[in-house]
């Protein structure tokens, strides 16, 4: 797949050196969303922050929170994703999150369960196979 990825956020949250990962990095939400097919939001993980990366959640929402006005910059049929759990009114506006025409967040969460199950199945199968090889018994 020929994917192009843009990373949008305040420079205080963008990992250093991200420009060299083959992604475009910007702190301008409008420019970052321009003509995007998929918009993936990420939760502001306050519990992992030591000290202030941003001035306030209200300013974060104002600059980087996904609302209808900002989403206008993306393609008209762009889908909105979010791995959850969401902070409504911080990184995403509630009406966008619940918009059945744009948001695939519910499906994403649902499929997330299946993907996790599949991943665990693969790990467990491999673990069993390895154990069988080393111990010579069928577990």
């Amino acid at each position: 797949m020929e994917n192009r990825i843009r990373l949008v956020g305040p420079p205080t949250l963008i990992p250093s050196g991200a420009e060299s990962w083959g992604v475009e990095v910007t702190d301008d939400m409008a420019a970052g969303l321009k003509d995007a097919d998929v918009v993936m939001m990420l939760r502001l993980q306050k519990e992992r922050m030591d000290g202030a990366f941003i001035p306030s959640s209200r300013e974060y929402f104002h600059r980087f929170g996904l609302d209808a006005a900002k989403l206008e910059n993306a393609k008209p049929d762009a889908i909105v994703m979010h791995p959850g759990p969401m902070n409504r009114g911080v990184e995403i506006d509630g009406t966008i999150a619940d918009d059945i025409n744009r948001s695939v967040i519910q499906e994403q969460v649902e499929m997330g369960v299946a993907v996790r199950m599949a991943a665990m199945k693969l790990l467990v199968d491999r673990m069993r196979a390895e154990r069988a090889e080393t111990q010579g018994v069928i577990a």
Partner: protein
Amino acid sequence: MTALLLQNARIIDPEKGSDEIGTLAVRDGLISGPTGMDDAQVIDCEGKCLAPGIVDIGVKVSEPGERHKESFGSAGLAAAAGGVTTIVTRPDTLPAIDTPETLEFVRRRANDATDIRVLPMAALTRGREGREMAEIGFLQEGGAVAFTDCDSVITDNKGFSRCLAYAASLGALVIGHPQDPALSAGAAATSSSFASLKGLPSVSPMAERIGLDRDIAVAEMTGARYHADQVTTSRALRRLERAKDAGLDISAGTSIHHLTLNELDVGDYRTFFKVKPPLRSEDDRVSLVEAVSSGLIDVISSMHTPQDEESKRLPFAEAASGAVGLETMLSAMMRLVHSDQIDLPSLWRTMSLNPSKRLGLDTGRLAAGSPADLVLFDPDVPYVMDRFKLNSKSKNTPFDEARMQGKVLGTWVGGKRVYKA
């Protein structure tokens, strides 16, 4: 609005670097071409100097919190009488200007109280405490032209670098106070044999260089637009020059007091000479004047800091720092002109053009289409400063009873006359 024709003026144009007799036309609040001015009110300037109004970055108006020291009304009167047409205010008020709401209050108060342009700066961190970032985005949208914690230096480099990185993403100008706060804590003078003989607690001039080195490094790391409020020592000047040569987006100011006075002026503990940073050696002063003349120092500020009698009538080490300067700035700087240390266009480059450019304003110049913010002054007329004649509510000027030269005759803001001598 009526048209205005200022004839027979010695026009000081910092942009062209020119100083010549001519006519300046004003229409609808803007500087205009000289044609079609038949309906204009004509003013004969009698060969006196006409220059862009001064743009003063770092003015303390003590509203909110200490209105008895200075209000927007009194600061506006002082500015008009001093030829200052734009005051860029400091956020070190009580409370600090660190939210969009307090900023809105300041803008409304200023608009009601004076015709002088008042552009507020906002705090970089909440309460100027150096911990949590202020809402730089909201404050910028609300009209804050720059961000500064004033003389409260952010010591946490991690927090400081995040503030600068965040400000950089908004293109916001950050104004720092280059100083090592641990070294300068409690200091009232610059370390020297004079300070020791006087028994004054002092700080090494190196504290400024340490502070500037740190600020330059963080500005380089984050790509922030950085301005040092006051560089006052030759040691720090060399670092400033190196940073500019390296192409960093860094500028620096200095104060009228550091350009005209030195540490010895403190004399017998005269607290009106206590400013922050403290007055420096004569060698430092001379190199500062050279740096202004060469363009290494971009901006001259009055660092107008009103203090009432109670804050100053104390033992030197305990007295408050700061001096009023809005009204004394022009004649203080005439000292440099009359001693041939700088010419008028170069002086106005640092007092009106550069500060305007650094803040992204369209003022501070005489090109057609620019706002007609003007000062008409006589550079030669001598007088003895009487601090009680100042318009400021606070009278703490070190130039009290000093022989001065240069008086403002008229001030216009957007073509409207706001002062007439």
